[in-house]
């Protein structure tokens, strides 16, 4: 049933339908509406979960870790400073192989303090072993939660997942979203039943320490599971398509890609703006296309290289920057395209919530056609 609803509320409803047993969350702009909505559901008997009002984000993810270890499906949400505070726990959760799902309402990292959107926060944790999904719109943001739980809990994966969506741009805007029914979600997402859990009937020690004799192999196994998740995502996405009509099996998605000379590559809500700009440019006869990345971890290097093989030039829209180097997307795309002649131009864009409009996308394309790239787009020289 299609509902016009705020992104946060649609996401909260999706989480409710996934039946988490324990929720531990700490409020932070712009995620607050999600955790407030969930608290309201618990208070009104709509969600049968133990909701822990923890004292910090660090404690939120730690509590989720404990709940997951004891056998509960668990959930949290955060962004920016909160995610940064969870840094240590994120590596811990992935290393201990607990399939926790966390919503990330993408927001810039301080300093300087900013409550507005960019993707620095989740991208800065790309080394952690978490799956990373990026939503273009509120429908995707909602659906990706069902997918995330399903993939994370698969015995071949057993890794935690971020579902990322641009803060304010998606979390606080109203869009029509198809909400699912409980019975249907129950069919798609079975009860969480981990093979190993904290249980007096079968004592296991979790989180032992590893000497150099084993550590490399443990890390290899995580990397392998993350990379193998591709086939699990494909299967989960296809089944979702069969049940609900929307296909999330691909990690990348092309738009007007077939004969595109300039291909923009991007993640998140900027893809929506980009598609609109492409429509206008195509009407003028420009051969432009978009490759949207929906799954950033595991990085879809092969799919990306294949999809981009026909392009004349690539313009990467990076809503982040690895300070002292380049945007994270551009670096990984260059790596995926290593050996090809296709130039890759990096545009650091939209940091700290600076609006990206259709005309900005068009200007990026113009710059790429001129061979000018690897710059901060829209830099206000007059304030420097």
């Amino acid at each position, binding site marked *: 049933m299609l509902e016009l609803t705020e992104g946060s509320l649609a996401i909260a409803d999706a989480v409710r339908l996934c039946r988490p047993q324990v929720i531990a969350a700490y409020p932070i702009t712009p995620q607050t509406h999600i955790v407030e909505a969930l608290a309201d559901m618990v208070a009104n008997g709509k969600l049968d979960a133990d909701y822990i009002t923890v004292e910090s984000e660090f404690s939120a993810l730690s509590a989720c870790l404990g709940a997951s270890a004891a056998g509960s499906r668990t959930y949290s949400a955060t962004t920016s400073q909160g995610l940064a505070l969870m840094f240590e726990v994120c590596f811990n959760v992935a*290393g*201990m192989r607990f399939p926790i799902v966390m919503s990330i309402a993408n927001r810039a990292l301080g300093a300087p303090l900013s409550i507005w959107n960019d993707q620095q926060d989740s991208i800065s944790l790309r080394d952690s072993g978490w799956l990373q999904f990026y939503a273009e719109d509120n429908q995707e943001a909602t659906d990706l939660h069902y997918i995330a739980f399903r993939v994370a809990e698969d015995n071949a994966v*057993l890794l935690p997942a971020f579902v990322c969506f641009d803060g304010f741009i998606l979390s606080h805007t109203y869009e029509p979203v198809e909400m699912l029914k409980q019975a249907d979600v129950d069919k798609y997402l079975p009860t969480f039943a981990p093979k190993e859990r904290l249980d007096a009937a079968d*004592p296991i*020690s*979790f*989180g*032992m320490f590893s000497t150099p004799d084993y550590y490399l192999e443990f890390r290899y196994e995580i990397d392998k599971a993350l990379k193998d998740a591709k086939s699990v995502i494909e299967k989960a996405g296809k089944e979702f398509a069969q049940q609900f009509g929307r296909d999330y099996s691909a990690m990348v998605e092309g738009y007007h890609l077939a004969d595109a000379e300039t291909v923009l590559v991007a993640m998140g809500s900027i893809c929506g703006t980009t598609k609109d700009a492409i429509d206008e440019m195509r009407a003028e006869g420009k051969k432009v296309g978009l490759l949207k990345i929906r799954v950033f971890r595991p990085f879809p290097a092969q799919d990306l290289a294949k999809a981009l093989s026909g392009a004349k030039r690539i313009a990467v829209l990076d809503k982040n920057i690895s300070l002292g180097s380049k945007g994270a997307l551009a670096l990984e795309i260059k790596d995926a395209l290593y050996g090809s002649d296709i130039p890759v131009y990096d545009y650091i864009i939209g940091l700290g919530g600076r609006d990206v409009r259709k005309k900005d996308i068009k200007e990026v394309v113009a710059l790429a056609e001129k061979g000018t790239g690897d710059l901060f787009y829209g830099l206000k020289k007059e304030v420097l």
Partner: protein
Amino acid sequence: MALAVGCRARPGKARDNKTGSWRVFKPFFDHEKCSQCGTCKTICPEGCISEDADGTFTPDYTYCKGCGLCATECPGEAIEMKQEEK
């Protein structure tokens, strides 16, 4: 042995580590003097002292580290630490 997902293990393998090899001094238990109070068994940090059928106590020398706590705490001075012949 296959690597356990997430660095986990069930109990049992600790016993592969025979800490008796750490010993310099070895406790010798005089069962005649033993008052069967059980103090040695209670305060051994290894938990390697067990009760015999006759109510006296004997350490498992495979794991006894020779720390001497049992000898110090035995109220009847029935345990003596002696340097081990190797």
